[in-house]
C-alpha cells in the first residue's frame, strides 16, 4: 500500500517593527542585553494595562497577504485566546480567530501550488528558560519578548513531499525578507515552524492529523515529514489509525516523540477583545500598502530566465541587489553579454564592485577577436560599397587591381574593422568578376 503525505504548515514570523504590537515598548528582544528592560503595564499584564494596536504591524501583515495572493477582507478584529502559562502575562493572548487580516492565498513551487488558509496577526509570549537555582528546578521569564508582533501563516494540507516543503519554506522566507518585514532568523526564534502531517491512501483528507512542534529549520521540517511518513504507515498497515496528538521533533535522532500532558484539544474560549475597536480595511488603504510591494523573488527569477540565464544562477543572483543592478545596467548597453555576465558574477570571476559595467562591456568587446566571416552579413555591405563607388569599379575592370584594396578598406570601415579580410577579398572578387 502506498501512502500519500498530506502535510500543512503553521509558520510564525516575528515582525521587526520598532515597537511592540500593543504598546510602545521597544521591539528588540534578541539584543536587549538584560532581561525585563522593555516592559510596561500593557506587555507585563499589570492591572489596568490596555492594548493599542501597532499600525505598521497591521500594514506589514496585509503587505504579506498581498505578496501571497491573499484576499484582504473589508473588516477584521482581534480576539482573546485564553490559556494559563507563566509566559502569558494576561492569561490570554490577543490574536485573531473569526476575522483574520488575510484570507486564502497561495505560493507556487516547482512541485505544485501550496494554498494558504489564512494569515493572522497576534502577540508573542514572553521568553522562558529553565535552570536550577538554589538546588531547585525553576523557570525564568523575560518579558522583553512579551507582546512582540507575530504573524501566523496557516497553509492548507497541500505539501506533498519533504522536498516540496523545503522549497516552499525557502520561497516563503525569501518573500518575507524581500518585503523587509522580518529577518526570519530561525536560530533566534524569529521564524518558527509547525507541521500537521497525515497519510492518505487515496488522496482524500484522512480522519486524523499529527501536529509536530519544535522544528527549528527547514531541514528538520523535511525530516519530520519523512519520519512521520514511516511511523504512520506502519500504524496504518496494521489496520489502525494514528493517534491525533502533538509530537516534538528530536533533531539528534531525526524522529518525533509524543509530548507529555496533552489531554485533548484545549478550549481557548475565544472572545472579541473589547479593548480594541474593530478594523475596517478600505480599498484606499490596501492600495497605499500595495505601493510598498517590491519586485518579488519569483518575478525577478522569471525575468532572469527570459534573459537566458540558467535557473540555478538566477536563484543565487536575486539575493544580491548589487549584482541585480549590474545585470540591469549591462542589459541596457550590451544585452548580448548578459549571459556571460551572469556566469562571471556567480563564479566570482571579477569584482563587480570595482569594475563599472561600461568597463566590463568594453573589456569583453576588445577581448573578443571574432571576425565576421558570414557571407550573409558581408554580401549586402559589399554590394553597397560597389554600388556607391562605380568609378572605382570601372577602374578595377580596366585592370587597376589595387582598386580591390580600396574596396576591402571600405568594407572594413563599414564593419568597424571586424570583417574577415580573406573572406571579404574572396567575396569582392567573386562579385567584381561576375
Amino acid at each position, binding site marked *: 500500500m502506498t501512502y500519500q503525505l498530506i502535510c500543512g504548515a503553521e509558520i510564525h514570523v516575528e515582525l521587526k*517593527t*520598532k*515597537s511592540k504590537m500593543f*504598546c*510602545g*515598548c*521597544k521591539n528588540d528582544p534578541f539584543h536587549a542585553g*538584560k*532581561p*525585563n*528592560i*522593555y*516592559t*510596561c503595564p500593557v506587555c*507585563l499584564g499589570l492591572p489596568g494595562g490596555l492594548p*493599542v*494596536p*501597532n*499600525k*505598521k*504591524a*497591521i500594514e506589514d501583515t496585509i503587505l504579506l497577504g498581498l505578496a501571497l495572493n491573499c484576499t484582504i477582507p473589508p473588516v477584521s*478584529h482581534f480576539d482573546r*485566546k*485564553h490559556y494559563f*502559562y*507563566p509566559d*502569558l502575562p494576561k492569561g490570554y*493572548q490577543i490574536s485573531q480567530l473569526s476575522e483574520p487580516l488575510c484570507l486564502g492565498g497561495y505560493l507556487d513551487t516547482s512541485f505544485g501550488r501550496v494554498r494558504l488558509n489564512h494569515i493572522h496577526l497576534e502577540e508573542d*509570549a514572553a521568553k*522562558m528558560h*529553565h*535552570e536550577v*537555582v538554589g538546588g*531547585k*528546578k*525553576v*523557570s*525564568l*521569564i*523575560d*518579558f522583553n519578548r512579551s507582546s512582540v508582533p507575530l504573524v501566523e501563516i496557516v497553509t492548507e494540507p497541500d505539501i506533498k513531499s519533504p522536498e516540496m516543503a523545503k522549497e516552499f519554506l525557502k520561497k516563503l522566507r525569501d518573500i518575507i525578507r524581500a518585503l523587509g518585514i522580518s529577518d526570519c532568523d530561525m536560530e533566534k526564534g524569529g521564524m518558527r515552524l509547525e507541521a500537521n502531517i497525515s497519510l492518505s491512501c487515496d488522496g482524500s483528507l484522512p480522519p486524523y492529523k499529527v501536529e509536530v*512542534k*519544535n522544528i527549528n529549520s527547514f531541514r528538520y521540517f523535511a525530516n519530520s515529514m519523512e519520519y512521520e511518513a514511516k511511523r504512520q504507515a506502519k500504524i496504518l498497515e496494521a489496520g489502525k489509525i494514528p493517534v491525533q496528538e*502533538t509530537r*516534538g521533533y528530536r533533531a539528534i535522532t531525526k524522529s518525533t516523540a509524543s*509530548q*507529555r*500532558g496533552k489531554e485533548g484539544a*484545549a*478550549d*481557548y*474560549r475565544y472572545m*472579541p477583545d*473589547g479593548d*480594541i*475597536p*474593530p*478594523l*475596517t480595511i478600505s480599498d484606499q488603504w490596501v492600495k497605499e500598502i500595495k505601493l510598498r510591494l517590491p519586485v518579488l523573488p519569483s518575478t525577478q527569477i522569471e525575468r532572469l530566465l527570459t534573459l537566458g540565464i540558467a535557473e540555478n544562477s538566477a536563484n543565487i543572483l536575486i539575493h544580491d541587489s548589487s549584482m541585480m543592478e549590474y545585470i540591469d545596467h549591462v542589459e541596457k548597453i550590451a544585452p548580448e553579454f548578459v549571459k556571460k555576465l551572469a556566469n562571471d558574477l556567480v563564479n566570482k570571476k571579477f569584482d563587480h564592485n570595482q569594475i563599472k559595467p561600461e568597463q566590463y562591456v568594453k573589456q569583453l568587446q576588445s577581448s573578443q577577436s571574432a571576425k565576421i566571416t558570414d557571407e550573409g552579413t558581408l554580401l549586402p555591405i559589399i554590394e553597397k560599397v560597389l554600388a556607391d563607388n562605380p568609378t572605382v569599379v570601372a577602374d578595377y575592370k580596366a585592370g587597376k587591381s589595387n582598386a580591390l584594396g580600396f574596396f576591402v578598406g571600405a568594407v572594413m570601415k563599414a564593419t568597424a574593422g571586424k570583417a574577415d579580410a580573406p573572406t571579404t577579398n574572396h567575396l569582392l572578387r567573386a562579385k567584381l568578376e561576375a
Partner: protein
Amino acid sequence: MTSTVISDADFAKTVKMAKLKLNPDEALKIHSQLDEALKAIEVFNELDLSNVEPLSHPSGLKNVLREDVVTPSFTQDQALQNAPATHKGYVMVPGVFEEQDS
C-alpha cells in the same frame, strides 16, 4: 442529583479551565448558584434575535491605531518590584516543563 443546567462534567471542566480550586462545599454551592443564574437567562428565549447583529464594541469606534514609535519602558527594577520571586533580572517560578500551546 436533581437535573442541573450545568452537568457535573462540564462544571469540573470549567473549574479546571478557570484555574480555580474549590473545596467540595464551595463547589456544590457555586454549582447551584450558577444553575440559578443560568435559568434566569432563559428570558432570552422571549426575544426575537433572528438577524440581529451581535454588539461587541459599543463605542462604535474603528481603526484606533498607534504609530510605530518607541516610548519609554519601565526600568528592570520597576518591572520586577512586585514579583514574588526573581533571579538575576528574571521573574522566577517553580519549574514548568509541559510544552505550552501555540
